[in-house]
């Protein structure tokens, strides 16, 4: 069984600032970490690899500048068997479509795969598009918002979040999952011995020539997204707590507030 875990290096803050002149994210002085959603997907992937038994392998895959190596080294310390960083100036400026195309080509170069584990979204862009787009490029079935996955032969049973609760779906591999952690998920921190082992695991850097790509579909050139404006939303004011003796009383009060505000 071959599992691919896609990981992205992101700035270590949810309070990302935007350069008002260029409209890009300010990354200087902000430490970089592995995207938390990706860490959950990776840890689920490692668990599935272990459940699959001997011969199963998990490859951590990332696209980014050479500094993204540190996110992959952490992936290796968390249990990935090997890691590949897609790094090339030709990949620079990619939107989610060009990124998913590039990642999909790399997956193609790895041969027959069984499962791709992605985080639901990256905390720096919050698009939640790259995983589903990869599935489209690779013509794979996908399950999004996966919270818990179990493996039975070639079939995965996935507990996925919905707006109203959960649903359980089955999917046959090969497939792609985008994962989101349950509320009680505690990300692992690798101990020293795992860090030392990580350094001894295979790590490769691949450029565009390695993955047989169409140059027009890479980086900025291959990105159909046009960013009109990026801005920090104004901070929201303080909320109002409604208190009452019963749900009905609070609902009544809420109705009055909404009616007075012209919402209803």
């Amino acid at each position, binding site marked *: 069984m071959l599992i691919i875990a896609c990981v992205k290096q992101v700035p270590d803050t949810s309070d990302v600032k935007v350069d008002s002149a260029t409209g890009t994210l300010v990354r200087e002085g902000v430490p970089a970490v592995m995207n938390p959603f990706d860490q959950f997907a990776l840890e689920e992937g490692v668990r599935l690899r272990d459940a699959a038994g001997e011969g199963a392998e998990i490859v951590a895959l990332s696209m980014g500048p050479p500094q993204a190596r*540190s996110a992959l*080294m952490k992936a290796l310390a968390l249990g990935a068997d090997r890691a590949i960083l897609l790094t090339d100036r030709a990949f620079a400026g990619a939107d989610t479509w060009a990124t998913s195309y590039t990642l999909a080509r790399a997956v193609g170069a790895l041969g027959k795969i069984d499962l791709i584990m992605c985080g639901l979204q990256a905390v720096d862009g919050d698009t939640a598009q790259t995983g589903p787009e990869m599935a489209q490029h690779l013509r794979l079935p996908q399950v999004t918002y996966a919270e818990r996955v179990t493996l039975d032969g070639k079939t995965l049973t996935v507990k996925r979040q919905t707006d109203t609760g959960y649903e359980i779906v089955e999917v046959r591999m090969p497939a792609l999952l985008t994962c989101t952690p349950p509320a009680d998920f505690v*990300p692992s*921190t690798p*101990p*020293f*011995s795992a*860090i030392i082992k990580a*350094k001894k695991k295979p790590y490769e850097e691949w450029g565009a020539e390695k993955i047989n790509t169409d140059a027009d579909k890479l980086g900025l050139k291959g990105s159909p997204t046009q960013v009109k404006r990026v801005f920090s939303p104004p901070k929201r004011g303080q909320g109002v707590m409604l208190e009452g003796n019963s749900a009905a009383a609070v609902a009544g009060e809420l109705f009055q507030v909404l009616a007075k505000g012209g919402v209803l």
Partner: protein
Amino acid sequence: MITYEFSEEQEMLRQSVREWAAKNLTPRVQEMEKNKEIPPDLIKSMAKMELLCPTVDPEYGGSGFDAVTAGIVGEELGRADYTASVPVFYLVQASWAHVFDKYGTRECKLKHIPPATKGDAFIGIATTEPGIGSDLANMVTTITPNGDKYVVNGEKNYISGVREVKQYGGGHVTLARQNLRAGTRGMTMFFLPLGLPGIDITEDEEMGREAISTGGFHISNVEIPKENIIGKEEKGFYIVHEGYEFARAIIACVCCGAAMKSLENGIKYIKERNAFGRAIAKYEGIQFPLAEHYTRISMLRDFTYKALHMIDLEQEGKASRMEVSKTVAMVKMFCATWAMQAIDDVMQWQGAFGYNKECPDQAAYRAVRSFTLAEGSKEIMKTIVARELLGKEFITYR
């Protein structure tokens, strides 16, 4: 040519410890200080991260860290626990397990070190007595050979981790006089499990770092086996300094971590706090001390890692005992004072809140104050540096 960077593994470990501490340690510091206890599950979690007794040989459950790597962990724990209780637990055990591992017998190490690396025991140090601190030659505790055993009598005081040993098990690397006529040349080091009959433990109240205990114990006709002797008989005074130097350098890391974290707290505060129509960070009365503290702590931090690197070089036979001793003393001389000065100003910037029990910086101030004394006072550090500069014939106390 100087290489001046941490290895990739060291950077990864720093990041890992920082993440672990942000999730597991910092949120519990206030509770620990209130309950005056490091929760056992937190120590177990440190063991899982392989942070306990980190330089010890993997055969005895350690990770085989070098001193620089052990220092990185100390710095991160200093940042994360502003009461310095967990850093003290870590550094005392790291330093004395380091010496125990290097000079102890295989039987004694197999028995006592693995429980400590698993978080089921504590290893401390006991040299100080009610009447002596720096002046080890005048200690009263004695160790006497008696057949195939040794008998220990005396008293130790201001010892870290006495309650922890009572609670979890373990003991203290201890120094006592064996040849009563030979002064420091007649001292023997040994491992003293505090659960033995004849040991009576008392606890003290301290002004800071309240989640780790400090206290003392009377030792009355306590028998220990020969295997508990660490190093050669009557050579304990020489090897005790290896432990002290290791601990002093890690203390400097803890001070750097605490001071830098406090300065970061301060920077956030002064940018947000307004007085007389603008952020107080705009005033030079705030900016100048900030710049000075940041510069001083940055220089201290770099020099501290140099001292740790020299400890590592000494293990490889590439640095002399005296060079290490001097460099570590230079670091330890100022680390607590400079950290206290930085934290003191951060408290001042925060006005009345800086003196409030809710303010982490006041706890850091009380904690760091202990390091002007612990593991060798700042005055003794000056004596060591002067001795190395002038020669032994100028030693004050001879």
